[in-house]
């Protein structure tokens, strides 16, 4: 079949249309059955085709008359009409009256523009409908041309080749051991100064004098190499600081610091 200039009848012959709105029937044989059309534009296109002229030369006025006539007949037969069709009918009636008006009385957009727009839409729908028929009429796989019936198939079997070296293996074991070891590690005794002992110590030392004393002075003396553990020193500093705060809160001592990060001084409050 030639791929160009298919007539509507040939479109039907392409065999894939389920639609009932056959364009090959003549005007009087129009199905009064709206299910055959996919909406008003479809019906309009069908009516336009009946004018048997190029869609670029259809008479919009004639088309409007046909459509409205069709709808009226359907109404006369008391058929349920879908709202879409009635809306289109009303719109076309408006278009018709506008087209018949003298040009200067027309509103914006002009009736000609509306008519042209409708015509352009019909052309586009018509073009796509023909294109669809031509596509369907091509040599289709599984209908006209066939693939190999029993292809062997191509298979790519993936095989993994795993890589790991000696060091990674041994290191992994070391890490497992190390990771599970902390339970033991965490209970290891550490030299700390508890808050209780710091409280006792600071209270006792405050009782000795009424002067300001720098917090550092409260730390246990560096003797016997005990201070070699910096962690004990930090623990003592922290505990003494908290003890000083606690004593201040209890109203037993007052604190003073001259500058940010400067030495912290503490002295006994006279009660």
């Amino acid at each position, binding site marked *: 079949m030639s791929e160009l200039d298919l007539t509507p009848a040939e479109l039907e012959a392409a065999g894939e249309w389920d639609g009932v709105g056959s364009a090959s029937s003549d005007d009087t044989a129009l199905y009064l059955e709206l299910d055959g059309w996919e909406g008003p*534009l479809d019906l309009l296109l069908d009516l336009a085709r009946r004018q048997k002229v190029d869609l670029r030369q259809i008479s919009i006025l004639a088309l409007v008359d046909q459509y409205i006539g069709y709808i009226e007949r359907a109404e006369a037969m008391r058929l349920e009409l879908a709202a879409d069709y009635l809306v289109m009918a009303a719109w076309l009636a408006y278009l018709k009256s506008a087209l018949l008006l003298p040009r200067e009385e027309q509103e914006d957009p002009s009736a000609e523009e509306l008519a042209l727009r409708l015509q352009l839409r019909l052309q586009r729908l018509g*073009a796509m409908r023909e294109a669809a028929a031509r596509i369907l009429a091509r040599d289709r796989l599984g*209908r006209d041309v066939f693939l190999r019936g029993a292809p062997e198939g191509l298979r790519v079997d993936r095989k993994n080749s795993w890589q790991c070296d000696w060091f990674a293996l041994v290191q992994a074991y070391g890490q497992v051991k190390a990771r599970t070891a902390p339970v033991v590690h965490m209970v290891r005794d550490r030299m700390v100064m508890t808050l209780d002992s710091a409280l006792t110590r600071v209270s006792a030392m405050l009782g000795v004098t009424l002067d300001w004393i720098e917090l550092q002075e409260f730390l246990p003396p560096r003797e016997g190499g005990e201070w070699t553990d910096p962690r004990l020193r930090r623990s003592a500093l922290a505990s003494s600081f908290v003890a000083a705060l606690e004593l201040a809160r209890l109203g037993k001592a007052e604190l003073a610091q001259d500058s940010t990060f400067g030495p912290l001084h503490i002295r006994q409050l006279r009660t």
Partner: protein
Amino acid sequence: MTEMDDLTRAVEATLFAAEAPMTAEAISAHLGGADVRAALADLAAHYRQRGVALVERGNRWHFQTAPDLAHLLRREREDVRRLSRAATEVLAIVAYHEPVSRAEVEAIRGVQTAKGTLDVLLEAGWVRVAGRRESPGRPTIYATTPEFLAHFGLASRKDLPGIDELRAAGLLDPVEDALEAALAESGEEREAGEIGQSKSPLAEPPLASEEESA
């Protein structure tokens, strides 16, 4: 018969055995990276007049029976999908206008497209979602697939019947563009402001809803 070189034989065997069309790249990868273009051209030429043909569809190659033998091979049970008229139209519109949004399809068809209609085409593997359009609402846009080209025997979208004529006639342009062009042509004396601007509610009839499902 002339001697075939090993690569051409390998390409022939690979495509014969393949269960789906293959790109030249895929064939090459399967054969260890050889350049298979010359072999493909040789094979296509060799099979041109045989009962089986080597064809390229959307950059994928496959063997299929020669179209003129269709009458001999047509089976009792056709295994092609029957499409509803709505689905056929939507497919054509997607193919000729791709990438295209659902709203654009509906503007051309004048009816709302039932969800099932596009689903049928997606399921058949002929249409795919091609992302979203960078416009308000970011609508999903659709395009055809290599399977669509293969099924309908199209080497590429350029092969779509009449696409050049349709494009030349402006029938693939939106109505608005065509309207502007037509008005500019005919209405030299019109006021510029009148052209296609400010749509009145009556400018276009509303979309009908699609009764017929795919």
